[in-house]
């Protein structure tokens, strides 16, 4: 039995960990799961409890490897392949993944289950819009799913609750250089940042200093550079040792100040893929900076016309003196997944140590504003959402529940997340909790 948490290091539970090395072994695990059920787990980067299953089984997908050749701009890979391995394989050949999040250390299976987004979401859509097909081991059988099938879009962002993805075929972006052409701007306030994020640059993101009253930011925008150098070496340079909690309003304020000051007012230049997309991957185990109490990441999206909620959230967090490094602000576009997080709107993501007094009340209040505005929080980040707001935030939940129940009629797929929030339709005869 193994004690597991998400990346935030909170709310552990104990489960039996399985490590199947083939699709057949996955199917067998599903068929022989116990009363507490089973959930897949990739690299454990979900911040909360999405890949935990207390008292049940957790199926680690690491051994589901396999990197096929690039054929017509697509590649077929095992679900346990990380984006790190994928980029190391692809970039020197002149290819890039359609979507990468802020870390390379996620698996393809996890990327589908969370239907992750990246800096190009407003232009290119989310991860599953770059998936041509995948193999889903569901409790009712093994399925080959394409975007024409509703079950594809129930699995995209379905938090692993429709089955275990074992293999996927991804569409790729051709690149001629491993460099990124990047424009960096330092803004005095939030309005300027929102304006810069509304340009048609392929990749864009802003880091906001929530400890400043103005919401000042540094905005990075860019695209793959032209050229012929495809060298790619993203190895981490540093590792974070286990430390007591160093985070408080003072140290973070100093860090944010320095970080904003060192950014140029306006600069156009070249950056590496790792620097532009995955700055935190440069420090291994960076989550340890929050100490043993762990942290939560709060990420919400509100529709574009609800930017007032965004502003209120920024000032509420600033007033609470939440010691948060660089909140990430981004514009999102539409998304077809039934339970996918993105919608056309503004998303803000920030880390807060759990020890901040009044945090639960503060975030519960923000949840309410976000839901009332027609927005939602990101389940892959969540570890504390008010259960009563789930249905309002995910209006397609009933349709998803129908498809989910058809794929898993006996309730084999379970997670701590599915117990904490009312995700699953209540069944007549519960299989166990």
């Amino acid at each position, binding site marked *: 039995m193994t004690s597991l948490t998400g990346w935030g290091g909170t709310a552990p539970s104990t489960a039996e960990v399985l490590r199947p090395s083939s699709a057949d072994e996955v199917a067998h695990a599903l068929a022989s799961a116990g009363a507490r059920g089973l959930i897949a787990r990739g690299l454990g980067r979900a911040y909360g409890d999405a890949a935990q299953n207390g*008292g049940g089984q957790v199926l680690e997908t690491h051994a589901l490897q396999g990197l096929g050749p690039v054929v017509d701009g697509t590649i077929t890979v095992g679900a346990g392949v990380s984006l790190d391995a994928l980029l190391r394989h692809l970039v020197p050949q002149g290819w890039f993944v359609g979507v990468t999040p802020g870390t390379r250390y996620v698996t393809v299976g996890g990327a589908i289950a969370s239907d992750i987004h990246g800096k190009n979401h407003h232009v290119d859509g989310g991860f599953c819009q770059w998936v041509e097909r995948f193999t889903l081991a569901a409790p009712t059988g093994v399925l080959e799913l394409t975007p024409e099938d509703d079950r594809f879009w129930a699995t995209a962002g379905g938090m692993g609750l429709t089955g275990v993805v074992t293999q996927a075929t991804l569409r790729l972006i051709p690149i001629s250089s491993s460099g990124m052409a990047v424009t960096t701007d330092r803004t005095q306030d939030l309005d300027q940042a929102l304006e810069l994020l509304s340009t048609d640059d392929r990749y864009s993101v802003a880091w906001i200093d929530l400890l400043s009253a103005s919401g000042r930011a540094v905005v990075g925008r860019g695209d793959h550079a032209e050229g012929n150098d495809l060298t790619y070496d993203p190895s981490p340079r540093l590792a974070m040792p286990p430390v007591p909690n160093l985070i408080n309003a003072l140290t973070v304020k100093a860090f944010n100040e320095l970080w904003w000051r060192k950014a140029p007012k306006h600069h156009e230049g070249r950056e590496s893929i790792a620097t532009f997309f995955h700055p935190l991957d440069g420090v291994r185990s960076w989550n340890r900076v929050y100490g043993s109490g*762990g942290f939560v990441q709060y990420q919400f999206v509100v529709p574009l016309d609800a930017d007032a909620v965004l502003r209120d959230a920024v000032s509420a967090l600033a007033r609470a003196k939440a010691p948060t490094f660089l909140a990430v602000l981004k514009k999102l576009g539409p998304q077809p997944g039934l339970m996918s997080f993105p919608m056309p709107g503004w998303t803000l993501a920030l880390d807060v140590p759990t020890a901040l007094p009044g945090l639960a009340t503060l*975030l519960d209040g923000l949840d309410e504003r976000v839901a009332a505005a027609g927005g939602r929080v990101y389940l892959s980040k969540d570890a504390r959402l008010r259960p009563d707001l789930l249905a309002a935030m995910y209006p397609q939940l009933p349709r998803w529940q129908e498809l989910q129940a058809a794929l898993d009629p006996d309730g084999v797929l379970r997670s701590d*997340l599915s117990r904490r929030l009312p995700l699953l339709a209540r069944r007549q005869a519960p299989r166990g909790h």
Partner: protein
Amino acid sequence: MVTDALGRPGTVLVLGGRSDIGLAIAQALSPRTTLLAGRGCPIEFDADDVSSHQGVIDAVVAEHGDLDVVVLAFGVLGDQAVDEVDPSRAVAVMRTNLLGGVSAATVVANQLRAQGHGSLVVLSSVAGERVRRSNYVYGASKAGLDGFALGLGETLRGSGAKVLVVRPGFVHTKMTQALPKAPLATTPEKVAEVTRKGLASGAEVVWAPGALRFVMSVLRHVPRGLFRRLPV
């Protein structure tokens, strides 16, 4: 449900749902759902009827799902003067506090172990840490329960489930209103706050108020001849 990242339980079950301390603990944890079980409570539960315990817990789980925190709060003070001469009355105190506690704690521990998470809070007492002349019937029942709960906590190590033993001193409650006030007296709210912190930090034993930990570590070792002359 499941306890969230900020330590807020989904479901708290109080066994002994009329206990002032039990209720204060549930309130301090601000769970999504509070379930009260006891005589005359929304969930009918009789601590003395040990054969019914499994059925009660099974029904609660079937209805509400995982139990995140279970507070074992039931207990009787007895009437020392009567209990020490009437064997049936002395046994009645033991039946509720000790046998009822042993049974309910075991049923709950099995459930928490199966869940792979969850905490059992056992309300013990400093009266059980060093049993004294003035309330030895009650004290002995709590001594037995305290030892049992500590042992149970050891068996749960590695399972994801935990036991927290809470040892309050004199607490102003319905149960103690007829008694003379004792030194270091506290309130249910303060016991609840100590409990909340203990759960958050993963403690195995907490005292309320905290200073009693040091008082009791001295009292535990006072020779009997001296102890009987102390005004405690």
